[in-house]
């Protein structure tokens, strides 16, 4: 291919040709600094020319295939971006909460939710286990849930209540709902709670750290490999820092790195709030929610606003 076909300015094109760079392939082997010297242009210009040339040459595509084959199981960010855009999230049934979460709990990620007793951790856990089953016609994930209960807090009566409310809501929007649907894939694993067994009987704290670290990686692997959401419920503890005691999630500093997203639930006056403490792509923000008879819903008394706390 000829240099003249490149979308660059005529002055640059002239310089290229007069310096002997007539074909695009001649540009591919040249370094930016070399081009700066030969053409007497700025480095940015040289980089831009080389970028355009390598892109135009189409060698990128072939290279890409080869590069992908080099590291097994690798994916380009572009493919992942397209994949991510088509993925469906598990709704929390509280639109304010969904808003700050970017649509709900995401698959392929480990989300940790923690807060003081009675704030509604288990309620959110049960709600997610129900919501994951919403059929795909209604915008759901249509999957199964695994609920790992370490504290004996899973209440089947409560799950029934939430499930009935959820089914009613679905029928309200879709009148022609078929009664039975067959979810086949497991889409969410809820661990309620991750803390309990690690808070007792540990004399060797280094051993605890190792076990927690190993477990975190296993959960990550599970989430990625089977394209499911892992939701871990955690308790709180007090931490002494900067001269005062503060509430933080339990299991220590190194565990705080173990999850992809971290959501902290807290009381603000009479209202329950969720705060995004850590996430690779969501802004830290907080939103109110309420625990009603039907499950997790929008808080009725409030306007959606941002509150700084914790």
């Amino acid at each position, binding site marked *: 291919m000829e240099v003249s076909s490149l979308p660059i300015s005529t002055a640059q094109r002239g310089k290229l040709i007069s310096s002997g760079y007539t074909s695009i392939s001649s540009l591919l082997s040249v370094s930016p600094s070399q081009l700066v010297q030969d053409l007497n242009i700025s480095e940015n210009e040289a*980089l831009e020319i080389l970028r355009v040339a390598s892109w135009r040459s189409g060698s990128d595509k072939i290279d890409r295939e080869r590069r992908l084959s080099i*590291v097994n199981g690798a994916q380009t960010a572009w493919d992942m971006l397209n994949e991510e855009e088509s993925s469906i999230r598990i709704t929390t049934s509280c639109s304010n909460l969904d808003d700050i979460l970017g649509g709900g709990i995401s698959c392929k990620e480990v989300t940790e939710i923690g807060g003081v007793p009675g704030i509604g951790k288990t309620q959110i856990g049960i709600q997610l286990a129900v919501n994951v089953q919403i059929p795909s016609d209604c915008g759901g994930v249509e999957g199964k849930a695994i609920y790992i209960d370490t504290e004996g807090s899973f209440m089947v009566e409560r799950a029934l209540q939430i499930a009935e409310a959820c089914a009613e809501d679905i029928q309200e929007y879709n009148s022609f709902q078929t009664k039975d649907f067959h979810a086949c894939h497991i889409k969410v694993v809820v661990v309620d709670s991750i803390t309990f067994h690690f808070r007792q009987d540990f004399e060797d704290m280094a051993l605890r750290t*190792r076990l927690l670290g190993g477990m975190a990686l296993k959960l990550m692997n599970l989430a990625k490999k089977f394209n499911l959401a892992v939701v871990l419920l955690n308790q709180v503890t007090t931490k002494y820092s900067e001269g005062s005691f503060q509430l933080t999630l339990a299991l220590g500093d*190194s565990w705080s790195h173990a999850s992809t997203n971290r959501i902290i639930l807290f009381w603000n006056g009479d209202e329950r709030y969720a705060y995004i403490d850590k996430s690779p792509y969501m802004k830290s923000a907080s939103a109110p929610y309420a625990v009603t008879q039907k499950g997790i819903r929008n808080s009725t008394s409030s306007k959606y606003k941002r509150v700084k706390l914790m």
Partner: protein
Amino acid sequence: MAPLEALALEYPLIDSNFRKFCASHAIYTVEDFLIHDLYALAAFAEQDCSPDKLKQGITQVLSILDNQNRPWLNGLELLKDAEQKKYLSTGCERIDVLLQGGLREGHVTELVGPSSSGKTQICLQAASNIAKNYSGMVMYFDSGNSFSPKRMAQFLNQSFNPDNSEVDQILERVMSSILHYSVFDIFALLDLLHQLLHDFKSQMCFQVRMLILDSLSSLIAPVLGGGGAHGHALMVSTGFLLKELAHEHNLSVVVTNHMVAGEAGASKPALGESWKNIPHVRLLLSRYHATDSRSISILKHPYLDTGKTVEFVIM
């Protein structure tokens, strides 16, 4: 040391005749060859019936040995080499200023900080910026499922000129040159690094600018400690593999590390003392209490002042 016979397979010049000649001077291994007076050996070769072949053999062995050794470099050559290594801009102006231009090629840089202090954000931003502005691939090893292509696209869109009509094409090109790989245990990581090293050696056209490992500490935490030195060995060999990759193939390597509780409630970087001297550059990140502003300071650097701190904001 290997016997001379071992070389015979690949190099036909070292035939039985040559080996017999060497054996007559008590040279059986490569080591014997090295400590023997080579001028004397060449003189003896002259007296043989086929002196040229023997001399060729001697030169052959010498050239094999030369290839095995790294060449000696003096300070001037090293300086020239160092000047060629570029600083890769992270995309965050303040951090670039702090590091006199950005992340250096050939360096292993460690980002350390507590949870949500911005380690992953810097990794994502640097990866997208470097893939955009420099040719070559960015490899991203992820152990926490926190690689977010959406966030990267956001960083890229911020940096684009809105008038540019080719935004989508550029986005595709940039995102296609970022390679993501999930690793969930240290052995898989070591396998990958060995494979990379091997691939780089065999085909030179495969160009990688940067390697990011987020996070290293979560891979090492499950094996470190517990009485055995096993975990330490794995950690240090990972460190040296990363350094070798960075040095030999001019990559900029970035790893992240977390903090653990130290003495008297203060926190310190994880992975202990023996990790401390592996990365060339250590940067400490911290976040001001639940706000968007963060600070970054130099804990260790080969030629910049330690303790320098700048504040930055993640947009």
